[in-house]
C-alpha cells in the first residue's frame, strides 16, 4: 500500500514542492503537522507528523493509584472528558468485578450523551469555520455553553470533570439539575434545525463537502476507522447498540449511517447523532431510577462525608483508600466505548497491586488520522482542511 510510507523523490522529478502545514495552523485543531508534497494546487503526497502534544500520560498512569488516574483521563481528549472517565472506570470496575447501581449507570449514560453533543458542537462549529461558514460557530458555542454549565453544576468543573469514579459517581446530582437538563433537552432539537438550515441545503457547503475526501467501506475498516468516520462510509456499527455497556441496552436510539463516504456524509452522520443523543438524554432524565450512586464496596468507594465523621470504620476505609489505594485482582481488561470520535478503548493490566501495571488508551483519532493520506492524495490543497475537519481530530488524544 503506497500511502503507508513516503517514497523517495527521483532526481529530475522536481515538479513538486514540499510544503509544511502546521504544527500551528488554525485548521489543524491543535498541533498537527502535515508534510505536503504538492504539484501546483494538487496534493501528490501527504504525511502527518504527530507527537507535538505527547505527555507520556500512559507512563504517568503506571505511577499513580487506580483512583488517581481518573483526573488524568480527562486530559486525554479534552472535548469529551466524561467519555474518557467512563471508559476507564468501566475497565477498572470490570477488573474488580463491581456491580454499579442503576442510577449511577443512567447518570453516566446521560452525561456521556451530553458530552457527545458538546464535542459534536465544537466539531461542527470549527469545521464550518475552517470551510468558511462563520455563523455556525457562534450558534454552536452558544449551546455548548449551556452544556458546560450543566457539567459545572453537577461536577464543579466545566471541562475537566472527573465526575465518574471507580464504583459510581463523585457526588449526588444537585437539586434542580434534572429540571435544567430537561429544559435543555426540550430546547435543543430546534437549535439543531438552525444549524441544519445554515448548512445542509447550502449550495456552497455542498460544493465544499460533497464528493470530497471519499473513503470506501473496505478502506475504512482496514485502516481502523471508527465512529462517524466509519458510519459515514456505510458500515453500520456502533458500540452503544452492538456491544452495549453501562446500561445502553435500556435506551432506544437510531444509528445514523450514510453510504457516500465523503465529508458531507460524515457531517450528516454527526448532525443526526446530535438528535439521537438528545433523545437518549431525554429518556435518561425521564426514566432516572432512584437509589444509590455508588457501589456497595467500602474498600474501593470513598465513604460519604457524613459517615466519615460519625463512623470509625468509614474513617479507616477513607484513610486507607487515600493513603495506600486499593488492590485490584490480577488480570487484564480491554474496555471499549463509543466516544464522539469512535472506538475509545482502555486496556488496563493489573498485577494485583494498588497501581495499574499498564494503562493503554486506544485513541479513535489515531486510527482515523491514518485515513488522511487516502482522503487527500490527488485532490486540491483546500480539500485538506475539509478532510481534517471531517475526521474530527483531537491531538491530545492522538499524542497522549
Amino acid at each position, binding site marked *: 500500500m503506497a500511502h*503507508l510510507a513516503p517514497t523517495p523523490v527521483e532526481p529530475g522529478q522536481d515538479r513538486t514542492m514540499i510544503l509544511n502545514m502546521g504544527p500551528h495552523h488554525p485548521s489543524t485543531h491543535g498541533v498537527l503537522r502535515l508534510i505536503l508534497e504538492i504539484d501546483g494546487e494538487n496534493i501528490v503526497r501527504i504525511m502527518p507528523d504527530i507527537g507535538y502534544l*505527547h505527555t507520556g500520560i500512559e507512563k504517568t498512569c503506571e505511577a499513580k493509584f487506580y483512583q488517581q488516574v481518573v483526573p488524568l483521563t480527562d486530559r486525554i481528549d479534552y472535548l469529551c472528558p466524561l467519555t474518557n472517565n467512563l471508559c476507564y472506570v468501566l475497565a477498572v470496575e*470490570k477488573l474488580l468485578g463491581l456491580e454499579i447501581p442503576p442510577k449511577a449507570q443512567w447518570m453516566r449514560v446521560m452525561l456521556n450523551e451530553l458530552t457527545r453533543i458538546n464535542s459534536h458542537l465544537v466539531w461542527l462549529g470549527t469545521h464550518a469555520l475552517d470551510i468558511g461558514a462563520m455563523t455556525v460557530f457562534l450558534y454552536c458555542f452558544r449551546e455548548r455553553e449551556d452544556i458546560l454549565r450543566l457539567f459545572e453544576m453537577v461536577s464543579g468543573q466545566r471541562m475537566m470533570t472527573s465526575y465518574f469514579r471507580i464504583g459510581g459517581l463523585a457526588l449526588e446530582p444537585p437539586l434542580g439539575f434534572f429540571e435544567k437538563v430537561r429544559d435543555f433537552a426540550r430546547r435543543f432539537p430546534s437549535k439543531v434545525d438552525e444549524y441544519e438550515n445554515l448548512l445542509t441545503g447550502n449550495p456552497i457547503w455542498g460544493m465544499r463537502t460533497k464528493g470530497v475526501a471519499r473513503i470506501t467501506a473496505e478502506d475504512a*475498516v482496514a485502516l481502523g476507522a471508527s465512529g462517524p468516520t466509519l458510519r459515514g462510509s456505510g458500515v453500520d456499527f456502533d458500540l452503544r447498540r452492538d456491544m452495549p455497556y453501562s446500561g445502553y441496552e435500556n435506551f432506544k436510539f437510531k444509528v445514523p449511517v450514510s453510504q457516500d463516504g465523503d465529508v458531507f456524509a460524515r457531517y450528516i452522520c454527526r448532525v443526526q447523532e446530535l438528535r439521537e443523543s438528545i433523545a437518549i438524554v431525554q429518556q435518561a432524565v425521564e426514566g432516572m431510577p432512584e437509589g444509590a450512586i455508588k457501589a456497595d*464496596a467500602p474498600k474501593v468507594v470513598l465513604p460519604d462525608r457524613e459517615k466519615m465523621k460519625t463512623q470509625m470504620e468509614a474513617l479507616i476505609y477513607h484513610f486507607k483508600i487515600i493513603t495506600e489505594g486499593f488492590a485490584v*485482582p490480577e*488480570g*487484564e481488561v*480491554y474496555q471499549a466505548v463509543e466516544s464522539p470520535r469512535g472506538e475509545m478503548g482502555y486496556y488496563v493490566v493489573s498485577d494485583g497491586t494498588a497501581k495499574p501495571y499498564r494503562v493503554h488508551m486506544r485513541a479513535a483519532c489515531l486510527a482515523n488520522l491514518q485515513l488522511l493520506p487516502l482522503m487527500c492524495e490527488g485532490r486540491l490543497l483546500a480539500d485538506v482542511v475539509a478532510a481534517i475537519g471531517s475526521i474530527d481530530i483531537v491531538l491530545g488524544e492522538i499524542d497522549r
Partner: protein
Amino acid sequence: MGPQPAVTDLDQLKGHPAIAKLLAWNSAVVEGAKFDREEVTVSLERSAIRDACVLLRDDPDCPFNYLADLTCVDWFPAEPRFEVVYHLLSIPKKERVRLKVRLDGGSPSLDSVTPVWPAANYFEREVFDLFGVRFAGHPYLRRLLMPEDWEGHPLRKDYPVEGFR
C-alpha cells in the same frame, strides 16, 4: 463481589470461533488460551502471528476484519519480557478476541501485521517508539510520538518515570 475465576483449559474454550479456528489450523502454535472477565485471550507462538491474523481476518464464518488495538506490555525483569497484544474485533459477528505474543528482551522483534490490516501502521510505530519492539516487514518503522533523535524507549519498565537526568 469480585471477578469469576479465569478458565484456562483449552478443551473448555474450544467453542469460541477464534480458538476453534486456530486449533483446527495448527494447534502447535497455540501456547494457551484464557477466558477471564468475559474476554478471550489466545497466546500464540511468535512466528505464527501474521499467518494467524490472515486466517482470522479471512474466516468466512466469523471474520475478525477489524484490528481495534495493538499494544505492548513490558514484564521486566521477567523473561520473555515483552508481550505484544492484539485486540481483534469482528464487526459482522460482534465478537472480540485478544491475541498475545511473547518476546525476549534481547532484541525483540516479530512480523508486522501492517500488510494484513493497514490500521496497524501507527500502532506498530508507536510500540516501536515507546518499547523498542521491531516489526519485520513494516513499511516505515520510525518513531511516531517521541522526537526522531530520542534515546531509549520510555514505556519500558526500566525507564524512570521522571526520565534520565
